[in-house]
């Protein structure tokens, strides 16, 4: 079986580097070109040192892109929209890791991103990039728009509860604890080590952009509001989303187990983590570092009807590159875990 030729556009960022790490070990992939304007002509391992001795590719310029089977786009916000026609002329399939084509609805895009979408007619061409929600559509799709990291963690935690209709729609409060790699590799005052180290920084108490995707995927036709906040902590990779869901009926722990088993029992990348003893009783971000897992746990407060759901991912893996490769595997009919087998490290 001949290999799939793949190019990565904008590969000098953290997500682009993680994508390369995975694709270099994918048995059915041949990496053709890797672009970065800033690092044009440099060895890829200069920017991604974990690829030393593994990859001798050099960055080329976006202007020199040639035809290939699949293009992964890891461009800054707005760039994919601008150059989409060129990309679709170069490749049969496109997986975009940016936010450009995540939303189905142009109005919602304008509301959340503050400026109108430049190619609204293409929005419906892109399948939203969470395989656990859109596996069959993805298997027939030409374009996939990878989901945001905080959105992925929150949506996967809440999806079964909202689909079954057991949650009070507009009462859920979710707070994500996140690491510094979510900000990408652009340096700033705020990410300067003596300032960033040891922070418990409430950087987005309200109005986080990923909210748009959450409300889109959890609405099932009726508008829904998720009360979302984000706090960055002393971590590089990792998201822990803690969601407070107020149930609209009396349920027991066993009912919750049944619902999660119904939706995720056969999912290769979702583990239900809820244990009575041991050092890791609920999902723990460091345990999924480098893996494509989303661990989900919960605890039910029967008196108040509050269900606390915890979900942990690696924002660069299930929240970006890993999920993009999972979508790639589905689009090509490969085993979904191909190149995504790394089990994570302990202790770490």
């Amino acid at each position: 079986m001949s290999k799939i030729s793949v190019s990565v556009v904008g590969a000098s960022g953290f997500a682009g580097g993680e994508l390369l790490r995975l694709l270099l070990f994918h048995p059915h992939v041949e990496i053709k070109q890797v672009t970065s304007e800033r690092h044009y002509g440099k060895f890829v391992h200069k920017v991604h040192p974990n690829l030393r001795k593994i990859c001798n590719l050099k960055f080329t310029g976006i202007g020199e892109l040639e035809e290939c089977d699949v293009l992964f786009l890891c461009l800054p916000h707005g760039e994919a929209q601008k150059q989409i026609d060129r990309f679709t002329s170069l490749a049969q399939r496109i997986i975009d890791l940016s936010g450009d084509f995540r939303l189905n609805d142009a109005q919602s895009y304008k509301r959340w991103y503050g400026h109108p979408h430049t190619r609204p007619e293409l929005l419906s061409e892109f399948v939203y990039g969470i395989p656990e929600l859109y596996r069959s559509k993805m298997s027939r799709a030409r374009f996939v728009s990878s989901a945001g990291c905080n959105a992925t963690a929150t949506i996967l935690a809440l999806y079964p509860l909202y689909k079954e209709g057991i949650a009070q729609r507009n009462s859920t409060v979710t707070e994500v604890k996140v690491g510094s790699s979510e900000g990408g590799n652009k340096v700033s005052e705020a990410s300067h080590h003596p300032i960033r180290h040891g922070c418990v920084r409430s950087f987005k108490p309200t109005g986080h952009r990923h909210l748009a995707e959450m409300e889109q995927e959890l609405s099932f036709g009726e508008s829904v509001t998720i009360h979302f906040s984000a706090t960055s902590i002393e971590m590089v990779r990792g998201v822990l989303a803690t969601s407070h869901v107020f149930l609209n009926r009396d349920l027991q722990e066993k009912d919750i187990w049944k619902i999660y088993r119904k939706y995720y029992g056969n999912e290769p990348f979702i583990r239900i983590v809820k244990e009575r003893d041991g050092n890791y009783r609920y999902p723990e971000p460091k345990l999924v570092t480098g893996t494509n897992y989303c661990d989900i746990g919960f605890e039910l407060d029967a008196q108040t009807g509050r269900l606390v759901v915890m979900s942990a991912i690696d924002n660069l893996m299930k929240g970006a590159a890993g999920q993009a490769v999972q979508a790639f595997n589905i689009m090509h009919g490969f085993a979904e875990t191909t190149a995504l087998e790394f089990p994570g490290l302990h202790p770490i």
Partner: protein
Amino acid sequence: MNQNVTCPVCDAVFEVAENVELNELLTCPDCGSELEVVNLKPLEVAEAPQEEEDWGE
């Protein structure tokens, strides 16, 4: 021939060896709860009491 049993905590159905004994301790593969065999015919399990270790700050 193995028998199936349902975990009272998380409702998972899992296989148990045919020669399981009364009061034997089992671990539910899904939720990890400690279960005790309280009846053989029909096979029944109940949650085994666990002392609460302290965990976390």
